[in-house]
């Protein structure tokens, strides 16, 4: 019975490309690439629990179907979006705003770019005939294929060799839609020795409801480049967000990437990191803050394909009510990748008896001269610490909040930029205040 239902849903999903076709940019090679990608999605359907990588996040059960493409935002939607992003304004940033999957020039700082930065929309690149940006690199599976097939818009940022940005690049995804999906795809390329900071925010405008996000971002760091990437996902309470991030890190480059999920009913953030040159260093950290019946899955694949690279992963989950947090961390050390130094630590804090945390570390090591380690813990707040704080005058709620902040702080501390660290910390504080 359930199987039959799932089958029906997949069939229903299968005409979303046809219905959207005349609104998707690009013809010729681009349209062919979309067609090939959509065949993969049609063949595989929504990922389900019998696929090892989706064991804890069964999209057939949780998402049921991929929603049709949202209409391009009308004036009223843009107005609601504008209100929703007022609070997101950060000092010294260059903001690029996508509303329901379409770049909104009026809300974006398109003219304010620093020298050495080129910003285009995905739409104009695809209309120009190049299908390169629809390539999924290390990522695979039905959801990234669906993204390639349906990608409507996004931002394409290129930073020239040696350019050091002083402004934060801020990509904002605002949902103003109801019962529709946005399919976005962006790209950030840092030339040799370039340095940048990228902030991504996902928020809902008033009136947004039961919407879906399928986003992808491809990030390439050239030799010696440095990027700090912070992603704050605060989508609407009944939204679904599936995002694929594909990082390629060249020699001696340094990447710090941090994801905080506090929004959405259902989310999957899958990050693929490929070391493409020696001497590179990656910190891939994250926090899930969940309550109600939220389900959030963070899955990271780190591919140590070359020798002498370092990776660190710190992940924290705080789960209340009937929330369900999933962390999967796979580290692959290829046969040639000697002197790899890879460590992963994941900890979950359960605030209720019905909260659930699944941690799945997977180390696949094919080289013999490496340092690799992982650890995972799951537990409740320490009663002796709570009592100490309460004996000093903190209410139960204040004491819990202080300990939870300290717990997630271990991951948030990795953010080097003080402004971004404070943004992540205030997102955590907002979550704590709203939790009640």
């Amino acid at each position, binding site marked *: 019975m359930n199987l039959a239902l799932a089958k029906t849903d997949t069939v229903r999903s299968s005409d979303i490309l046809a219905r959207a076709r005349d609104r998707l940019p690009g013809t010729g090679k681009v349209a062919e690439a979309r067609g090939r990608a959509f065949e993969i999605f049609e063949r595989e359907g929504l990922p389900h629990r019998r696929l090892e990588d989706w064991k804890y996040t069964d999209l057939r059960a949780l998402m049921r179907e991929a929603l049709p493409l949202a209409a391009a935002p009308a004036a009223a939607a843009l107005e609601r979006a504008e209100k929703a992003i007022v609070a997101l304004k950060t000092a010294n940033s260059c903001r690029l705003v996508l509303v329901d999957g379409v770049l909104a020039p009026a809300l974006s700082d398109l003219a304010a770019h620093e020298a050495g930065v080129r910003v285009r929309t995905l739409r104009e690149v695809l209309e120009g005939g190049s299908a390169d940006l629809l390539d999924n690199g290390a990522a695979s599976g039905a959801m990234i294929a669906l993204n390639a097939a349906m990608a409507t818009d996004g931002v394409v940022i290129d930073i020239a060799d040696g350019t050091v940005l002083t402004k934060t690049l801020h990509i904002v995804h605002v949902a103003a839609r109801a019962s529709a999906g946005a399919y976005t795809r962006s790209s950030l390329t840092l030339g040799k020795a370039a340095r940048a900071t990228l902030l991504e925010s996902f928020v809902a405008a008033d009136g947004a409801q039961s919407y879906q996000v399928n986003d992808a971002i491809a990030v390439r760091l050239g030799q010696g480049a440095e990027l700090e990437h912070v992603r704050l996902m605060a989508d609407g309470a009944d939204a679904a967000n599936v995002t694929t991030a594909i990082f390629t890190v060249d020699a001696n480059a340094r990447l710090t990437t941090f994801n905080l999920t506090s929004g959405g009913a259902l989310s999957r953030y899958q990050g693929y990191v490929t070391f493409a040159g020696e001497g590179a260093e990656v910190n891939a950290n994250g926090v899930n803050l969940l309550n109600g019946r939220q389900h959030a899955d963070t899955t990271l694949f780190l591919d140590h394909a070359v020798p002498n690279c370092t990776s660190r992963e710190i992940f924290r989950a705080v789960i209340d009510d009937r929330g369900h947090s999933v962390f999967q961390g796979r580290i692959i050390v290829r046969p040639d990748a000697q002197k790899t130094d890879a460590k992963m630590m994941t900890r979950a804090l359960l605030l209720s008896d019905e909260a659930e945390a699944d941690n799945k570390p997977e180390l696949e090591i094919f080289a013999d001269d490496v340092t690799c380690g992982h650890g995972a813990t799951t537990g409740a707040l320490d009663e002796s610490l709570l009592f100490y*704080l309460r004996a000093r005058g903190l209410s139960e709620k204040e004491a819990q909040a202080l300990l939870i902040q300290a717990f997630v702080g271990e991951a948030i501390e990795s953010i080097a930029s003080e402004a971004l660290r404070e943004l992540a910390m205030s997102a955590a504080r907002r979550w704590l205040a709203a939790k009640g």
Partner: protein
Amino acid sequence: MALLEVKNLHVRVEDREILHGLSLTVNKGEVHAIMGPNGSGKSTLSHVIAGKPGYEVTSGEILFKGEDLLDMSPDERAAKGVFLAFQYPVEIPGVATMTFLRTALNAQRKARGESEFSTPDFLKKVREVAKSLNIPQDMLKRGVNVGFSGGEKKRNEILQMALFEPAVCILDEMDSGLDIDALRIAADGVNALRSSDRAMVVITHYQRLLNYIVPDFVHVMSRGRVVKSGDKQLALELEASGYAQFEDAA
């Protein structure tokens, strides 16, 4: 009215009764020492006064300035002016000592309907107190008690006592784990806080501490109740004769 009044207190932990009808009256300005062998219920008394969960009061009462203390949550007790200096202060990684001190002080002030301290006033106050206790500034930047030595942890407790200005201080085995120099610094800190408005209850196993913090009254606890009370001479007698006589008496 007595500041702190413990009346015929019976306390149970799980299925075992630990305190069997303990009574104690503490007035403003007084320093009381509670001595007794291990397992006599000294720490249980301190925990019950502070409101630690896991203890069941089956009968008796504790009044603080005439109010029923047992009816209050631990944080309400703290705001009212009850302070427990822990025998084993916990380490709280990720919570900077300064953040903790400010959050706690302002929570207590807020609960009393007082205005919160401004950051400069707060910093000034903490620095003054820290200096008098020989607590280096970098200790205040670290996580609460994280990597602190035994002596540093105890000094951090006294720092909080000085900052929060409680009406009654319960010092639970303040001397445990301290060498003689650390003990002297801690005791000096406590003595500086003695005042005619404040009472102290010093819980200790050894007479040694009472050479530094000289009590007005000494109580001997055995098997869950006070079996003898006297002045500081009693502590010296105990030092000479040990607790065995009271074990029999109880």
